[in-house]
């Protein structure tokens, strides 16, 4: 939990700089690429996580990898992380930065699970409906979950809109059970 809190602080600082210099999207792209590379390369992950490798070495590796490819702000940020020995937080910072950018640009992440795959038209319809009800742009991440039996479940942040057949059945069961206990009371 603590890590998330620290990562959020760093992400906020980076966002502030990027905002001033008008490179929010560039930095986002850089961070996304860095995140991907981290996922792909085991060696890089090991380097970042290792407390044994000295600060100078890490900085040199970062420079060689990204110096010419990323924005100045991103590079400076990576070096700062290395300097403060927080480089193991990169993955979390990337995540937090994306969240902050979404918030800044009024984008909401909606996680949609459905029993059968949604057609493109259905997904578009869902997106416009969700955008209308939330007043923000909605990015839909769809997945299929046959256990729902039918219908779909949308999760935006902490709020869940459950219109699945599974939930309906659960509610029906609760209702019936309540009724039986009440009749025998």
């Amino acid at each position, binding site marked *: *939990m603590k890590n998330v809190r620290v990562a959020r602080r760093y992400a906020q600082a980076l966002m502030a700089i990027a905002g001033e210099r008008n490179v929010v999207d560039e930095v986002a792209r850089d961070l996304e690429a860095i995140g991907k590379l981290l996922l792909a390369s085991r060696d890089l992950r090991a380097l970042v996580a290792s407390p044994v490798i000295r600060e100078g070495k890490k900085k040199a590796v970062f420079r060689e990898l990204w110096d010419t490819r990323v924005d100045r702000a991103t590079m400076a940020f990576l070096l700062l992380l290395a300097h403060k020995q927080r480089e193991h937080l990169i993955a979390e910072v990337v995540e937090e930065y994306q969240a902050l950018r979404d918030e800044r640009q009024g984008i909401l992440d909606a996680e949609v699970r459905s029993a059968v795959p949604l057609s493109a038209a259905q997904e578009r319809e869902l997106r416009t409906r969700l955008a209308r009800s939330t007043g923000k742009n909605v990015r839909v991440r769809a997945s299929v979950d046959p256990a729902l039996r039918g219908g779909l479940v949308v999760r935006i942040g*902490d709020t869940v*809109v459950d*219109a699945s057949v599974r939930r*309906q059945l659960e509610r*029906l069961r609760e209702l019936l059970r309540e009724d039986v206990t009440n009749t*025998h009371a």
Partner: protein
Amino acid sequence: MTEVRPEEVSAILRRQLAGFEKEADIYDVGTVLQVGDGVARIYGLSKAVMSELIEFPHGVFGMVLNLEEDNVGCILFGESREIKEGDTVKRTGRVASLPVGESMLGRVINPLGQPVDGRGPIGSGQMMPVERKALGVIQRQPVKEPLQTGIKAVDAMIPIGRGQRELIIGDRQTGKTAIALDTIINQRTTQTEKARREGIKPVYCIYVAIGQKSSTVAQVVDTLQQEGAMEYTTVIAATATDPAPMQYIAPYAGATLGEYFRDSGRHALVVYDDLTKQAQAYRQVSLLLRRPPGREAYPGDVFYLHSRLLERASKLSDELGGGSLTALPVIETQAGDVSAYIPTNVISITDGQIYLEPNLFNSGIRPGINVGISVSRVGGHAQIKAMKKIAGRLRLDLAQYRELEAFAKFGSDLDKATLATLRRGARLVELLKQGQYVPMPVEKQVVSIFAGTNGYLDEIPVEHVERFEREFLEMMELKHADMLQAIAEAKDLTDDLVNVLKTILRQFTDSFKSAVGA
């Protein structure tokens, strides 16, 4: 269980299905980060409010106690073993509450209002939150009606009024619970037709058992049942086996149930047995939630824990129906140490205390009340006139007796006045002894104490005082029931009554003396 007919099932199903619309269910969720020892930390639930109920898997409920930057601290009211890290939890949108109503009377429930006596569900619709704000100044009035405990020593010298908060404090095994139970049992008299004629309103009782052994609670329920007191009593049990969060909220649940009676213009009595255990349970959950420990490792708000509970005891103004909620909190001390943290706190909050001492108890003075340091700060206004008239004298006589008692142990050369004081005191102490589960109606207390303070016992040997009282009251009941009735109705000892009583006593004392050969 009655047989369910097939057609009945179909009818129920049809009715249910007819009202069952396919609509989306909207709820807020969070994820369990950490769980154990009756508390859980949850990520998400960003809209959760303080003391809201949270639904965990396996039908376990929790209550929000900590709202932090990125997580929510919860206490669990059920088995935490089945809950795992990463489980999804739901907000319920309602704060911790329990059902209230008359149907709760005669039942044993847990602090969430669920029955634990195995007698089926309780049909009650109204829900009230467990934590409620105490009433303000405008809604209250001073206590004025007596709450008779049926215990001579208490009703005479430490009177309790309806709406008062009187602490019962003492070491273990000194009869704290006995006083509370006797008081509950004595409320039986307020439910009768006779009480109604005398203008005494019934008192509904709630006994909150916190952190006690289940067997002790079962015993209490059994006693109340045998004495016919369960009809107007609810027992709220959070036993030692229940999770600490249950023990922490139990007194508030009791207060809520009591407030239901108070707010509908009736009178209620709540016994919190005992608040030491509740403070310990609260200390446990506070430390687990990583709140900083203070004195005796209690959290900083342990005073507020008890003050907000006891402030809920009140006497409502007449515009609001004049109902009342009397609180009898119990505190257990260690080796008579009333200057420990929790005892001093609760002493300062309440309107007086009944102090029980083990050496009195062990020397046969039962109830073992130390009348010297026990006080009732507001109950005097609620005492009936008859009792007020004779109790002043009783207090004085006993105080003088205590002063001379130690002194008298040294020498035998005492002057006449000292001897008389000692003689009187020893008999009054004897007179105030009373068995358990035998509460005495106030009119009998009055005549019996009248006999003591007016010197009719001075000639009787100390060992015969108990017999004197018993036979005297039997005789009063047989031959002078009208006199007892008159005291009960007028609630006063008029000069005429005093004169008659004196004549009766003179005759009775003479015949008693010759009977025992004194």
